[in-house]
């Protein structure tokens, strides 16, 4: 077992308890997609693409009064330590479902009856928290596609590590840690649209971790907005790059 927290109270990658990993956001990275975004979060490298609103295939899935939202979270075979079979795993199918349900409240689907919107997430490299990072990128891609939205969606996890509640677990922390609590919110509407828990926490710890995850979401939300502003209103310097201060392994 690795020592996950050293005597200075820092984590293996040098972060404080409540510190996010370095991250990077981009929008409009693909030519064919109607909207696209790219996120790096720790070692996560994820591409998000949105196609739609478009005709529904197969036709019988058409909804008369609103848009059909579909979501696919997929990992490239080379994205993890041991090669992943490219066929969708049960894990990918579950995550695709909860990501779709986390995005749906933010979209004004009634504006696009009888159409479909496809949200595709491709994890090129996976680290802890890939579903949260993917969700944050997916919201950007939806905005980039010009889909009518009530709010952005942004996600971040907190967890428990050697008895301590910490923000944004990396791969190694997730594996060795006690619990992981991914949370997604619509910041302006004060709605939690994704929440999962793997692992054990007391009721009190649950509250602490939940609130820490909300803080992380807010930081990322600011970065999302800055990325969109920089893209669409041409600020010279995209402000979403948060450089890590602590030592990194």
């Amino acid at each position, binding site marked *: 077992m690795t020592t996950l927290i050293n005597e200075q109270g820092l984590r293996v990658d040098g972060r404080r308890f409540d510190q996010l990993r370095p991250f990077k956001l981009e929008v409009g990275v693909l030519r064919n997609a109607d909207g696209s975004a790219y996120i790096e979060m720790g070692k996560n490298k994820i591409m998000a693409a949105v196609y739609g609103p478009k005709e529904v295939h197969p036709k019988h899935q058409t909804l008369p009064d609103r848009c059909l939202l579909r979501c696919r979270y997929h990992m490239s075979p080379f994205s993890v330590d041991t090669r992943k079979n490219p066929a969708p795993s049960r894990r990918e*199918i579950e995550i695709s479902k909860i990501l779709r349900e986390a995005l749906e409240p933010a979209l004004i689907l009634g504006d696009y009856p009888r159409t479909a919107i496809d949200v595709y997430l491709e994890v090129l490299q996976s680290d802890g928290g890939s579903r949260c990072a993917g969700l944050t990128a997916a919201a950007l891609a939806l905005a980039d596609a010009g889909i009518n939205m009530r709010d952005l969606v942004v996600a971040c996890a907190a967890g428990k590590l050697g008895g301590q509640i910490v923000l944004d677990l990396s791969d190694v922390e997730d594996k060795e840690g006690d619990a992981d609590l991914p949370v997604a919110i619509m910041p302006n509407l004060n709605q*939690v*649209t994704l929440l999962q828990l793997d*692992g054990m926490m007391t009721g009190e710890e649950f509250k602490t971790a939940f609130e820490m995850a909300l803080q992380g979401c807010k930081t990322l939300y600011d970065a999302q907005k800055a990325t969109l502003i920089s893209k669409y209103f041409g600020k010279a310097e995209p402000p979403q790059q948060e450089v890590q201060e602590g030592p990194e392994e």
Partner: protein
Amino acid sequence: MAIGKKPIVVEQIRKTRMAEFLSKGRRLSGRGLLDYRPIKIETGLIEKASGSAKVSIGNTQVIAGVKVEMGTPFPDTPDQGLLIVNTEVLPISSRNAEPGPPSEDAIELARVVDRGIRESKMIDLKKLCLLPGKKVLAVFIDVSVLDIDGNLFDTISYACTAALATAKIRKYDVANEEVKATEEMVPLPIRTTPISVTMARIEDVLIVDPDLEEEALMDARLTLASDHDDNICAGQKGCPGGFTVEQIMQARDTALVKGKENRDLLKREIGLA
């Protein structure tokens, strides 16, 4: 849970009426907001399984069976047995359940139940290891859904817990790197009894144990599982709607209270308390 949703014509009028009732703390069925329907548990009816349980919550009915086989451990956990949860929403269970590969909903169900068992450390997987890196016991829990009237998450979860807690498996002796089956039958190495509590939000009200009609109208769903020490050990939010931060905290409290009640009931029913 979308299973069983489509057949019901969801009239807005019905939802309005339900919301009215709920705002007064009542449900259309007459239940209180935090009342479960009757929970029935029968164990041991599948003699060919190591353990089995048929559980009904109201009209929802599932059966879980436990099989234990020899297996090879995963390379990254050479000293742990295997746990495999599989759920089948049988076509007998609903007008809308089609035969075929498991739907997205069935996969979510199985994975959430799996996490509830795994993350609560209900089974001490290390005690299922016979020869580290080579031979371990693999515990298969298969759930067949027979009849659907809402809240499959809890019904399946209780069936799995009851089947596991009452299972008897062959004892194996290990000596000189050889595994030998004995005649003795022993229980699985059970540490705790995780209990899930599923809640639904309809408009601004949180209820527990939604039935099929309530599921058709609910805005969002939250399942939280807890163990006998009041630790929360698994969670899953579902449905295309959200919760406020306050509702999440309220749900946490309800999950711990109702979890304790249902754990006591379950242990009584299967003869463990």
